[in-house]
């Protein structure tokens, strides 16, 4: 199952306009690739093209399999897709929603076990008989993730899987995706949260106005200066409790015309020990400049 996803010159045209310029990148098996960039950069367009939802040029291969040549059914057996809009149109019970993940597979006698396992993995088994539409946003996100896991895909494509979740659920969902990657799955996701990207992604693909800026490990790709140029606002990067943190600090005056100091990478090492009062960071002179 461990196969790399290779995109070669992937281009998307929408209404005669180039929505995504030729893009070549490899996503190794067992890794998470985060697609980041400002609104309108083409993140969802890229993900939809990979999912087979948008016509595109260029090659997309998984190992030796050319995904663009596959029938929708064969493609569905390899790719699990988590859309941004996870609305359910009918109040199906959670178990049935998760079972939809097996739709592309042949009828399997052990379907019940697979569904139970996926629900256990995402901690929704106790909700199995409840209508999925009556659940909270966090619970629904986990149900949809369980649906994708039930299909046992080689590639998971997720469009902002943590957008509507509280911090604890954001971490839980990211950890689950991390777990899937560890099991050999190739995960590609659109993200807005730079800190989560820095912490959980193995590779970050930065997009701007339909063009790829870079594809590199987070530490290399998510530099304060690059982010400042990309988003037009100032960032602070650092580590807290050994985890990377990237904060947009904004500076209305400088955002429109960044000064030389804006965007400088400022690393602040803060070690959080036992739970106690909130850590207050006093900006240093260089941070004020940012």
């Amino acid at each position: 199952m461990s196969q790399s996803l290779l995109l070669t010159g992937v281009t998307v045209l929408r209404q005669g306009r180039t929505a995504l310029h030729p893009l070549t990148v490899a996503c190794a098996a067992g890794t998470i690739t985060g697609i980041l960039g400002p609104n309108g950069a083409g993140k969802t367009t890229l993900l939809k093209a990979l999912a087979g939802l948008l016509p595109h040029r260029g090659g997309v291969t998984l190992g030796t399999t050319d995904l663009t040549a596959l029938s929708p059914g064969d493609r569905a057996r390899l790719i699990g897709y988590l859309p941004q809009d996870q609305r359910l149109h009918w109040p199906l019970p959670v178990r049935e929603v998760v079972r939809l993940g097996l739709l592309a597979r042949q009828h399997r006698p052990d379907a019940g076990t697979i569904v139970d396992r996926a629900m256990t993995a995402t901690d929704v088994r106790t909700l199995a008989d409840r209508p999925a539409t009556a659940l909270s946003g966090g619970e629904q996100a986990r149900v949809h993730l369980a649906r994708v896991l039930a299909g046992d895909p080689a590639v998971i494509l997720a469009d902002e899987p943590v957008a509507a979740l509280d911090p604890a659920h954001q971490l839980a969902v990211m950890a689950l995706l991390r777990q899937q990657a560890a099991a050999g799955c190739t995960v590609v996701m659109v993200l807005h949260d730079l800190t989560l990207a820095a912490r959980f992604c193995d590779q970050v693909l930065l997009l701007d106005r339909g063009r790829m800026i870079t594809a590199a490990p987070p530490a290399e790709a998510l530099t304060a200066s690059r982010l400042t140029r990309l988003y037009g606002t100032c960032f602070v990067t650092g580590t807290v409790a050994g985890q990377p943190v990237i904060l947009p600090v904004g500076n209305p005056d400088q955002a429109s015309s960044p000064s030389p100091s804006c965007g400088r990478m400022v690393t602040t090492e803060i070690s959080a020990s036992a739970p106690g009062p909130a850590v207050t960071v006093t900006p240093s002179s260089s941070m004020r400049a940012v």
Partner: protein
Amino acid sequence: MQDRTLIFVLLLGLLVCGAVSLTVGSPLPAADLLLAAMGEGDPRHRLILLEIRLPRVLLAVLVGWALGLGGAALQALLRNPLAEPGLIGVSASAGLGAVIALYFGLAGVWALAPAASSLTGAGLATALLLTLTRRGDTLSVILSGIALSSLAVALTSLAMALAPNPYALSEMVLWLMGSLKDRSLHDAATAAPLIACGSLLILTAPRGLRALTLGEDTATTLGIRLPALYLRVVGGTAAMIGGAVTVAGSIGFVGLLVPHLLRPLTGHDPARLLLPSALGGALLVCAADLAVRLLPTPQELMVGVITALIGAPFFLLLLLRRHLREALP
């Protein structure tokens, strides 16, 4: 409720309703009816049973099946509990076809002219609808349906306004109101193949309809070919409704009410709802037709009037109950 239990209960209800329908009317002893059913006994009894009552029951079952299944399929396809067969404009176009035949007095030349013309109307509307909805998305189905429906209704009104004589006008009105009276086995034979083909197209598409619960994008990534699914369900519904309207006129509210009533009993699963909804539609139209025959009115009521008279307030009651339940703490 288990699907099997629900289907069994609906089938049982349908059998009982059909059997009662066959026996209701001028009193015939059960023994005579049985003899007539076996092709023996008094030829008049045979005539009553096989030429008058049986076609009526058969048509009620066929038309109800088409409306119930068509409603459930369209609601699943468009993911909207308010969708119904009338929405796609095929019933209105079939009605227009029949009205044109009546306008030109073709019924006097050939008795089957209104049915043939109605079928042509349904066929043309279906072809147009399928061309317009080839891409496979909800909005184009709804918009094309509304446009087709409005055009057909406007042309029907025009034909009625310019009706050559009051007799033709009354024929048109009665035809449009929907009835199963004075139909023959020939009518059933006209509608049956269309309804059978439509049913086959729809009942073999449960995976796609279930996947659409997750929306069009996700359904596509689950391996569903949406354009093919839309063609299949819209085409199947159009064939069934065209056949049903051709022989019975337009009977409203069945396609809306029946899926709505049965949905909670099938776990809100759009695929599991298909067969029960077809049987429920058949049962409802059969029961409504029985009611119009039993009601002591000076002139027999139209079955379409009864389904709307029962259906609309019942539907309102359901909505009211849901609102009350949601409003209560």
